[in-house]
C-alpha cells in the first residue's frame, strides 16, 4: 500500500536521481495556488462545501495518472495518526497548515512523490511539484501542464485584472511560489549569506530555513523563493529566481575553493570530526546532527570522503526528524529518548556504507 511507502521511506523516489548542480541545489519546487470559482475559500467555508470539493477530487482523480505522475493516491488528513502527518510534513509532501486543519482536507500524492496536490489547504487547491537539483524551468513547465489538466474539470476563480484569486493577498496573480532548496555551508561558515540576504530581499525574493517560514537554516540548508506574485509572469519570476540562485551557486563554489586554499587542513579536520561524531555518538540532538551532516556532505563534495553517497544529507536530515524517529520506533518518544534513537539510527546508517 502506498501510504505505507510515503510514510516508511525517508527519501522520495524522485530524490534518488541526481539533478543539475546537485552539489549545491538539493531540489527545485513550484507551487501553484488555485481556487474554485463558486465555493467559499476554506478559511470561512462550511464543512459541507469543503466536503463537496474533497469528494469531487476523490471521484475524479483517485488512482488517475498524468504523464510521469502515476496513480494519484488520495491521502485524507482525518484518517491519519498525528505521527503519520508529521512524517509527511518532514518529507515536505504536505504543509503544516494542512495538518492543523485536517477536517475535509487531503493530499493527492503521485507514486514517485514528485507531485502533491493539497485539497482544502488555505486555498482549495495547492499544486506542488518537485524536481531534484536545479531545474526550475522544467518544474514550471510540468506544473503548468498539471494545472491545465486540473482546469479541464475545475472552474477556476480567475479575474482578468487580478489573475488567479487566492485566499491570501500575498498569493494573488500567478498564485505561484517557486523555491529552491540550497546547501550553502561555505557561505554560512564565512557569514557571507547573512550579508547577502538583505540584497536578495530587495529583489523580491526571500531566504528562509529548511522548514519554511520562521525556521532556522538547519544544516546550512536555505530555501530561496519569490515573494511577489502579481504583475509579473511566471516565466519572469522563475527567471529572476534562476539568476539569483545561479549567482549563489557561483559564490558558494568560490567560497569553498577559498576555504580549501586558505585553510584546507582545518576544513578537513572539521569534516572528519563531524564524521566521527556521527559515527560514534550515543546521544545527539537534531541541531548537532544537522550541523555534522552538513559538514559530512561538504566533505563528500570536496572529495575528502568518497565511500558515502551524496544523498546521505537529504536522507538523514529527514530520517532524524522527530516524526520519522517515532514512526521508526513504532512508539512515541520523549525528546531525550529521541536523541538516543537518532544517534543509533545515524550510526547504523553509516555502518551500512562501510560494509559496501
Amino acid at each position, binding site marked *: 500500500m502506498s501510504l505505507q511507502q510515503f510514510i516508511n521511506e525517508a527519501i522520495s523516489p524522485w530524490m534518488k536521481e541526481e539533478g543539475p548542480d546537485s552539489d549545491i541545489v538539493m531540489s527545485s519546487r513550484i507551487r501553484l495556488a488555485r481556487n474554485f470559482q463558486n465555493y467559499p475559500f476554506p478559511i470561512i467555508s462550511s464543512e459541507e462545501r469543503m466536503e463537496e470539493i474533497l469528494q469531487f477530487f476523490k471521484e475524479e482523480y483517485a488512482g488517475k495518472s498524468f504523464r510521469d505522475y502515476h496513480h494519484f493516491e488520495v491521502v485524507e488528513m482525518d484518517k491519519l495518526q498525528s505521527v503519520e502527518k508529521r512524517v509527511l510534513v518532514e518529507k515536505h509532501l504536505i504543509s503544516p497548515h494542512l495538518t492543523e486543519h485536517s477536517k475535509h482536507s487531503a493530499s493527492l500524492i503521485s507514486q514517485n512523490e514528485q507531485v502533491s496536490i493539497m485539497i482544502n489547504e488555505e486555498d482549495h487547491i495547492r499544486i506542488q511539484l518537485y524536481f531534484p537539483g536545479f531545474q526550475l524551468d522544467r518544474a514550471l513547465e510540468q506544473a503548468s501542464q498539471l494545472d491545465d489538466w486540473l482546469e479541464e474539470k475545475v472552474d477556476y476563480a480567475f479575474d482578468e485584472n487580478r489573475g488567479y484569486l487566492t485566499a491570501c*493577498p500575498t498569493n*494573488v496573480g500567478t498564485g505561484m511560489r517557486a523555491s529552491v532548496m540550497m546547501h550553502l555551508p561555505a557561505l554560512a561558515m564565512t557569514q557571507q549569506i547573512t550579508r547577502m540576504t538583505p540584497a536578495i530581499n530587495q529583489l523580491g525574493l526571500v531566504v528562509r530555513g529548511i522548514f519554511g517560514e520562521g525556521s532556522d537554516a538547519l544544516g546550512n540548508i536555505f530555501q530561496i523563493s519569490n515573494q511577489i506574485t502579481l504583475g509579473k509572469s511566471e516565466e519572469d519570476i522563475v527567471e529572476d529566481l534562476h539568476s539569483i540562485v545561479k549567482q549563489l551557486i557561483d559564490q558558494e563554489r568560490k567560497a569553498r575553493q577559498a576555504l580549501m586554499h586558505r585553510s584546507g587542513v582545518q576544513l578537513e579536520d572539521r569534516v572528519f570530526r563531524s564524521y566521527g561524531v556521527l559515527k560514534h555518538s550515543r546521544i545527539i540532538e537534531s541541531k548537532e546532527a544537522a550541523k555534522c551532516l552538513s559538514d559530512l556532505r561538504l566533505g563528500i563534495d570536496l572529495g575528502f570522503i568518497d565511500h558515502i553517497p551524496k544523498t546521505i544529507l537529504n536522507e538523514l536530515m529527514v530520517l532524524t526528524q522527530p516524526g520519522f524517529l517515532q514512526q521508526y520506533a513504532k512508539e512515541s518518544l520523549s525528546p531525550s529518548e529521541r536523541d538516543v534513537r537518532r544517534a543509533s539510527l545515524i550510526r547504523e546508517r553509516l555502518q551500512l556504507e562501510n560494509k559496501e
Partner: protein
Amino acid sequence: MDCQRCHKRPATVHLTQVINGEKTEVHVCAYCAKEQGYMSDNQDFTLNDLLSGLFNYDKSSSYKGKQSKSYQSNKQLKCPGCGLTYQEFAQIGKFGCADCYKTFDERLNPIFRRVHSGNIKHDGKIPKREGGNLHLKKQMNEYKTQLQHLIEQEEFEEAAKIRDQIRSLDEQIHHGQGGEE
C-alpha cells in the same frame, strides 16, 4: 495538533523546555502561550498582523475633516458571495471567496501595491477555459505591437499578413464569443 492546555485551538507555538537537564516539549496555542508566560504580547507579531495593519491604514483619515463617507461605507462593505465584511477581511487578512475581490475592489490597489512592490494587475498565465477570449485579446495586443514594428521597418508585405491575422482574430473575438464584453 490541538493545544495541550485548552484542547480547543490548534497549537501554533512549539517549545522545547530544558529543566534540570530534562527536556519536555510544549505545544500550545498562541493564547495559552501568552497565559503561561511563554510569550510576551508584542512577540506575537505575525505576517497577518502586518497585513491587517496595512488594510486598516486609510489615507483619507489622516486628512482632517475628510473622514469621508466612502470610508464609512467601505467599512460596512459586505461580500454578497460569502458574507465577509471589509472589517473582517482587514482583521483576518484573508479573502473569503472569489467575489470578495470585486466587492472590495476599490480598496485593494493600495494593499496590492505594498505587497507586490507596486503591481496591481496580473501579467501571467490565463486559464484555458475560464480565461474566455482573454487569450485572443492577449494575442491581439502582440500582433498590434508586431504590426507597429513592421511598419516602422517599412516591411509592408509582412505587415499586410499580420493585418489579415488581426482581422480574423477580431472576428473571432466579436463573433465567436460574442457578448463577453
